[in-house]
């Protein structure tokens, strides 16, 4: 296993796409949070009472999370779909015929990278956002109630999206198709669930991005009653992780 981990690490760090997706995540994700918090800090005096009530010092730092998560999803997809797209999977499987070992090693290497980058992104974006909010004395500290949990959870969430991307990439075996699925999960599931609200709030509560809203904010629940509870939001992450990795592992065991 350690040998395969080493091999997968060489692959991941040798590919330009790894750096491009992560630069996109950081530029878009951190950049939008920076703009949002700067704007709030400067316009607080003229904001309506409603807008002030909706303001979340942590959540507003993570305005760009929606873009960052797509980049993390793409990172996960590419970790395996390019092997099928280029045909390199046949070389990989000839060198590592045990499918379970390969799937696990890839997941561990990608997972370690995505978790580190996700947390670096979360804490970096949070700290930058708070520095901007400090101009309007609206900033919070990591030691305030719920803040450390929210920031760490935003990083954890990015890790989950990368792993879901990996599972979907292994299942679909096609870069464009897998990215389309990730786009659906991240951007289209939300309006779809909204459309079903007259029947049930359950779809809303199972949407991955709604879980991220709850996890990455300090007082999201008070503002949006349709969102899952904090416990259910963590359960959502687990659910997506298990389903995506399970399907990916199953498909990886099939003919290559």
């Amino acid at each position: 296993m350690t040998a395969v981990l080493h091999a997968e690490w060489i692959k991941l760090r040798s590919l330009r796409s790894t750096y491009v997706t992560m630069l996109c995540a950081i530029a878009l994700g951190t950049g939008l949070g920076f703009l949002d918090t700067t704007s709030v800090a400067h316009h607080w005096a003229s904001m309506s009472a409603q807008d002030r009530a909706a303001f979340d010092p942590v959540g507003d730092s993570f305005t760009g999370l929606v873009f960052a998560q797509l980049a993390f999803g793409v990172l996960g997809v590419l970790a395996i779909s390019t092997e099928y797209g280029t045909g390199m999977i046949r070389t990989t499987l000839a060198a590592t015929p045990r499918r379970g070992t390969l799937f696990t090693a890839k997941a561990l290497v990608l997972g370690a990278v995505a978790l580190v980058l996700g947390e670096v992104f979360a804490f970096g974006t949070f700290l930058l956002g708070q520095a901007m909010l400090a101009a309007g004395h609206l900033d919070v500290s990591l030691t305030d109630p719920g803040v450390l949990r929210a920031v760490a959870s935003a990083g954890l969430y990015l890790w989950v999206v990368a792993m879901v991307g990996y599972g979907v990439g292994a299942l679909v075996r096609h870069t464009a198709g897998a990215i389309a699925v990730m786009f659906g999960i991240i951007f289209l599931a939300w309006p779809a669930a909204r459309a079903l609200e007259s029947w049930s709030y359950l779809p809303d509560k199972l949407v991955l991005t709604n879980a991220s809203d709850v996890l990455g904010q300090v007082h999201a629940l008070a503002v949006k009653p349709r969102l899952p509870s904090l416990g259910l939001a963590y359960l959502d992450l687990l659910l997506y992780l298990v389903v995506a990795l399970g399907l990916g592992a199953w498909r990886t065991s099939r003919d290559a």
Partner: protein
Amino acid sequence: MIEAHELTKRYGAAVAVDRLSFQVRPGRVTGFLGPNGAGKSTTMRMILGLDTPTGGRALVGGRLYRSVGFALREVGALLDAGAVHGGLSAGRHLAWLAASNRLPSGRVAEVLGRTGLDGVAGKRIRGFSLGMRQRLGIAAALLGDPPILIFDEPVNGLDPEGIAWIRGLMRALAAEGRTILVSSHLMSEMALTADHLLVIGKGRLLADAGMEEFLRSAGTSTLEDAYLRLTQDAVEYRSTDVNR
């Protein structure tokens, strides 16, 4: 040694490989011949555990390939020279392969030298010609110094110098006591390289014989004539204006 026992692969109603049994023995070059669609590549993929047989089994060194730990030390394979990521350099490609089987990193430089690629080790594979990719695929197959080697159409895209080099390489590897299975459509080349022949058509074994015996039983002087005679009923794709 490579063994196939009643090896079968079906895709729905279509039978790609039909109860194929053979042994590929060490110390000689075994040519694997058959028309397009005969099942050669599917057989090789099943030997390497890439495809799961519908029936029967294929063993390498007495074991199922999918159960082998450091597979590159047991079997070296070139199935498709395109099976690489173009964004990697040749050296990095071989480096991850070596790492995956815990081979000493010095092996990378050795096989690059042996395949004449030492000058392009740092270049991205994307810019390689087909012939260079074939050499890289052969370098990858040699990486683990394996006792069994499998090559699917290795001379594809190589220049005459490269073809002669491959021929010499195969002969040398067999002389070292290794098991060599090589598929090709180039009969004149195969006549110079192979000691033993496996011929399949429509997924079935048509011949398993030494080169001389094969020619003698066909009653022809060239391998091409013997091959065409043997496979004339097994060709699935044929142009209509062939006059023979």
